[in-house]
């Protein structure tokens, strides 16, 4: 492989990784607060891309209106899911919550099939995202840097919220001790809702960018990115937002690079993610950034 091909693969890996990272954050935030693997999270990726698709294709909205709108709608759906399916179960054993998450996932996928139709749809990229660019002798398609930069901007905004706002501070406290956070005068239900909203918004952004990168959408398209992002979250140390970002990038880059260096293994591409996960769990069960923490009771 020559250097140019290497750089092309690298940028491809980084952009894939930034998508995993965007989606992984929602898993990790919800887990950090509720100790719940939100199984339905991947389906919000699908929902985000469909709403964006219909905004452009059916309602003729410009992309710069349709995309943010799709993020808002998905964030709203995330809140509705939390309120209706998870909040009523919060005081029950964790397995109930997990079962509810699986149910919500199936519900979203099947509603997707009923409402959007099972046939894949072609997602149309805005024209400026489809230009060939020549960056220092390396030619890449413009959506690649656009995906990466958008993701980085969103990460920056998220970190600002988490580390520089009152609600963010409450969110960090909540992930340690919900009850004690309430004793500080924090309306914990509202903060949990806020966390779901942020995670769902990022999943929608991930879904739209995913559809820009892989412009065929279908109602089950969220499953694989969801699984990979979940693995990324575990790699980074589940519950840790910075870890989810690192895990996402790492997974994306490794996945692309292995296929690039060993093309004959490309059929096993998805298996690598699981292999990495198993290895990591064997040698560092808490993930890259994870700390050993007591199980919540």
């Amino acid at each position, binding site marked *: 492989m020559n250097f140019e091909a290497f750089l092309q693969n690298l940028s491809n890996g980084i952009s894939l990784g930034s998508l995993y990272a965007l989606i992984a954050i929602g898993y990790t935030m919800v887990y950090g607060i509720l100790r719940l693997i939100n199984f339905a999270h991947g389906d919000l990726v699908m929902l985000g891309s469909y709403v964006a698709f219909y905004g452009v294709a059916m309602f003729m909205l410009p992309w710069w209106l349709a995309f943010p709108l799709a993020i808002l709608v998905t964030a709203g759906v995330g809140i509705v899911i939390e309120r209706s399916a998870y909040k009523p179960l919060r005081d029950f054993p964790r397995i109930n919550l997990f079962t509810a998450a699986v149910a919500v996932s199936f519900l979203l996928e099947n509603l997707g099939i009923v409402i959007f139709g099972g046939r894949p749809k072609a997602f149309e990229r805005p024209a400026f995202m489809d230009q060939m660019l020549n960056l220092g002798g390396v030619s890449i398609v413009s959506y690649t840097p656009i995906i990466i930069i958008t993701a980085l901007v969103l990460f920056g905004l998220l970190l600002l919220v988490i580390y520089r706002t*009152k609600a963010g*501070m*409450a969110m*960090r*406290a909540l*992930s*340690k*001790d919900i*009850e*004690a*956070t*309430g*004793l*500080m*005068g*924090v*309306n*914990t*239900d509202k903060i949990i809702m806020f966390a779901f909203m942020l995670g769902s918004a990022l999943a929608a952004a991930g879904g739209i960018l995913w559809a820009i990168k892989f412009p065929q959408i279908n109602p089950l398209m969220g499953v694989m990115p969801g699984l990979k992002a979940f693995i990324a979250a575990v790699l980074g140390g589940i519950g840790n937002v910075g870890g989810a970002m690192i895990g996402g990038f790492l997974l994306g880059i490794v996945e692309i690079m292995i296929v690039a260096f060993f093309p004959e293994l490309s059929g096993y591409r998805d298996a690598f993610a699981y292999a990495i996960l198993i290895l990591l769990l064997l040698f560092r069960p808490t993930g890259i950034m994870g700390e050993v923490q007591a199980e919540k009771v």
Partner: protein
Amino acid sequence: MLDIKNLHVSYGGIRALQGISLHVPEGKIISLLGANGAGKSTTLRTIMGIVKPTEGSIEFLGGNILGMKSFQVVMKGIALVPEGRRVFTNLTVTENLALGAYTRNDKVQIQQDIEEIYELFPRLREREKQSAGTLSGGEQQMLALGRALMSKPKLLMIDEPSLGLAPVLSQGVLSRLKELNQTRGQTILLIEQNARAALSIADYAYILETGRITLEGPAAELATNDAVRKTYLGIH
């Protein structure tokens, strides 16, 4: 200020409180004493809306607070320093204090109050940027107390501040409480294992036994009561 009447609380089949009534007047230190498992923490947790009672009433400043969530009780003017301190070990010392002021919006005054807490507990200032997890038990207790004070509570409730602390340290915490009461008129409801120390700073005390109040009276009187001396002060 705080009026509890006929409070019953059950955890599943365990009847933790079986009709307790107590009164906390403004400006006083009231102590709740009792052996492990008597229901002391349950009482405070019920006041904070963490546990739901099956019967009874809780009034604060003349208004009902039963059925409120913790954050609403805090907004009414009650703060709890929970058993085991429960500082946020992933936040810095300053962030812990700032979170204590979550219900307030007066930024400048909050900053001044954080300063005041640091004057009260200089050990905390030395560690203001460290995560609370790196503090010793005594420092964490100071932080938990400072954090509760940051909401400017009308009623401060403290659950076993000397738990796990060396006697010298716990004596220090208790004398701080007395100081707060005398200089600021802070009303305090104190739970303490060390009955002798608690009775020495309290105005009035209740003794709780397996979910019932079996004795109450001015602290000075209880300290000389034979039964109390035998059971809680270890004097025979």
